[in-house]
Each structure stands twice: as C-alpha cells, then as structure tokens.
C-alpha cells in the first residue's frame, strides 16, 4: 500500500480508461522511482497522452489507480497538482498577453510569492529580449520556450512532458534536457512522451512502450544516461555522440 511518503515518484496500477465504448488503456502498470527519467513510447493513438493526462489530474481513470509520490491522482488532486509540472502538446498560453504577463499569471495561479523573479526565468529560456511582447507574434518554438519557462518557474518535483521537444531548436532541446536533468537531481522524476528517442537519449534512464493499451516493453534507454554536466552540452553534440 502506497503512502504519501512513497519512494516511488510515479505509479500506475492497472490503469484503464475508455472513451465511450473504446478502451484506450486496458490496465497499465509501471512505476518510476524518485530521480528516474523515463521515456514513454508507442504508436499514434496508443494512449500515451491519455496516460499523461490521467497523471496530470485532467482525466480520471475508468479503472485502476495512479499515484504521484503516493498521492492518488483521482482523490488527492490538490497534493498531486502541487507536485506536478505538466507540459502539454499545446502551449496553453494567452496570445494577447505578453511573455512576462503570461509568466506573472502562472506565478500568481501557482501561489508563488509576490516578487518572484520572472526576468531570470525568461532569461534562462532565452526570451528576456521579448519579455514585453505579446505571445501572438511568437513562433511555435518561442511559445514552447515560454511554456518551459512556466514549468521551471514552479520548480515541480515531478515532470509530465508530452512531446517536449516539438518545435524546439538545438539550443531549446539542450534547455529542455537541462530542465529534465534538474528534476531528476532534485529527487523528482520525469515521464516523457516521445516519438523520437534521439533528443532525449542523453537524459533517459529507461523507456516504456505502450501497445494495445498495456505496457508492452520496459527496457534501459539505448544510450547511457548523461548526467548533469553533460546534459548541459548543446543537444547537437549529444546527438552526434549517440550516433
């Protein structure tokens, strides 16, 4: 029986979910220890995003239990949300607000103290020079970076990332890997939905493959995990090394 002090950061125990008559997940069971970074693989429509949304408290499982650090995602939603950083496929930004205003809104909604250093966060993701520009004029990659800034602002222990490398350039990929490595180092964990392994190969401990609504395979990541200092290298260097 899991407790809120569980050493397991993320647990799925027979998680099933259906939409109407169609079962997308049919009993997914796996666990991530604290400090672990796992890539979630699978074909289109295999239920990866559905599983991530269940852990993110955005969907309730039809059967089974999902827990974050021992907190049940369906019952103990407040505690789960306080631990989580969820990066969805869509950036979830407000087009008519500036980059700084979007971050300030996120800070206030997250209950962060007044005076949280938004500029330092924008600087970290390389958007300090457009802090006062409206998001409507941002490229897809810039919007992604701002979504990453919102993620790191909260310093969540557990990261749920849905295709986090989409629209990011090499520098952005390195930044994303840095954020993931930080979560691992801080005693958290990260579950990363991926279509391509290459950008994340430097930070993954193992991969889980979903097929037919169940875990089909769980195996170590194809390349050795590259820790802190190496994760800070530019992504193109890591990609070349993996090849």
């Amino acid at each position: 029986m899991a407790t809120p002090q569980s050493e397991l950061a993320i647990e799925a125990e027979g998680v099933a979910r259906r939409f109407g008559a169609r079962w997308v997940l049919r009993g997914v069971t796996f666990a991530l220890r604290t400090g672990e970074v796992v890539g979630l693989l699978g074909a289109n429509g295999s239920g990866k995003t559905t599983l991530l949304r269940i852990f993110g408290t955005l969907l309730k499982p039809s059967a089974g239990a999902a827990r974050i650090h021992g907190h049940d995602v369906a019952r103990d939603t407040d505690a789960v949300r306080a631990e989580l950083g969820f990066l969805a496929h869509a950036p979830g930004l407000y087009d008519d607000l500036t980059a700084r205003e979007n971050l300030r809104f996120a800070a206030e909604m997250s209950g962060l103290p007044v005076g949280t250093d938004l500029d330092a966060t924008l600087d970290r993701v390389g958007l300090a020079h457009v802090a006062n520009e409206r998001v409507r004029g941002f490229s897809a990659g810039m919007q992604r970076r701002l979504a990453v800034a919102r993620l790191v602002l909260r310093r969540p222990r557990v990261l749920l990332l849905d295709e986090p490398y989409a629209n990011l350039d090499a520098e952005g990929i390195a930044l994303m890997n840095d954020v993931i490595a930080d979560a691992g180092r801080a005693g958290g964990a990260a579950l990363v939905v991926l279509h391509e392994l290459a950008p994340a190969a430097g930070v993954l401990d193992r991969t889980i493959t979903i097929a037919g609504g169940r875990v089909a395979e769980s195996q170590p990541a194809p390349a050795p995990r590259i820790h802190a200092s190496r994760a800070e290298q530019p992504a193109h260097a890591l990609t070349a090394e993996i090849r």
Partner: protein
Amino acid sequence: MAFRDDLRRVRAIVWKDLATERRSKAGFNSVAALGITILILFGFALGPDVQTLRDAAAGAIWLSALFAGVLAFNRSYQVELESGALDQLLQYPGPRWVIYVGKLVANAIFVGLILVIVIVVGIVLFQVRIPSAWPSLIGVLVLGAVGLVVLGTFYAAMASRSRAREVLLPLLLFPMLVPVLLAAISASKALLVGDIMQEAGAWIKLLAAYDLIFLVATLWAFEYVIDV
C-alpha cells in the same frame, strides 16, 4: 493564508480575462453591436407608437442583454480553449471555485458594461421616461445582471466541453433563465410606470432569492462540470 492565495488567484483570472478582452477589442465591439442591433430590430417590429414602445422597453432591453450576454459567455471560455489554456488553468493548485469566481467577476464587469450601453440606447430608442424610483430600478438591473452572469458563466463552462458549445449554451441557459428574466422584466416594468400596483417589491425579493440560490448551487457544482 490559503484563502489569501485563492483570492490572489481570483484577482489574477479577472485581470487576465479583462486584459485579453481589452486588447482583442473585437469581442466587446461585436457583443455591444449585437445588443444594439437587437434593440433596433425590436423597435422596427413594435412600430412607431410611443406608448407601445414604452410598454415593451423593459422586455426588449433585457432580451437584448441576454442575447449579447450569450456571446460574451461563450467568448470567455473560447479564449481558454484556443491554445489549450484551459488544461493549464486546471493544472494550477487551488480549489475549482477560484476559476468560477474569477470568470464570474470578469463576466460581470464585461456584461455590466454591455448592459449600460444597451440601457442607454434603449432609453433613447424606446423614449423611456426615467422614473422617480430610479434607485430601485438600478437595484433590479444589478440583481438581474447577477442572475444572468451567474448562470451564463456556469453553463458556458459546461458547454465548453462540447464541440457544439455555441448551440448548446443557449439551449441550456435560456430555460434556466426564465425565472430571472420574468422577475427582472416584471420588476422593471412596474417601476417604469411608477409601481402603481405595489408589485415591484415582490419581484425584487424573488429575483434576489433566485440569485442567491443559483450562486450557491453553481459554486458547489462548478468542479463537477469543469472536471472530466
């Protein structure tokens, strides 16, 4: 401390919604234009007789505010749905009522401004005489607007989960608004003719009771309609 954080979240949502509306402009302009257009159409339908126009003024103004309000309520969630912001909003810690109250206050300010425009245009078009009991009339307008916004914000959240939300919202909202509209129109009409039958007070009490009941019920039920 937690309650103070919740109030800060409410304020953040109100500011965000109003800033988004103010900057996009298209929303406010189109909603106000719709309200005025409906009033003009009522005027054409009723004909040139001044007394007929005066008798119908309260109903025409409230119905114009209702149709314009439906657009406004739909828009308030449309902004959240455009780039997946609703999912992000639901990810923040804190109770769900915070989102509802934030949206409610922002919609109240937005619809309040629309109502002011519709009333001013309605007074001119329908040649309404301002009654001596105008403070009571303002009270009716406030209570009616609260009922409209409470139910509109709640049902817009419910409809936002559906692909047919533009059609679904009026279908859900209009039947539920019948008591609020009936009370608001009857009280307004009574006050506009000097409340000869002394009936305005009863309608105002009814309106206040509906507002209170719907506010409590929607505050409680909001988390069940916004969560999937």
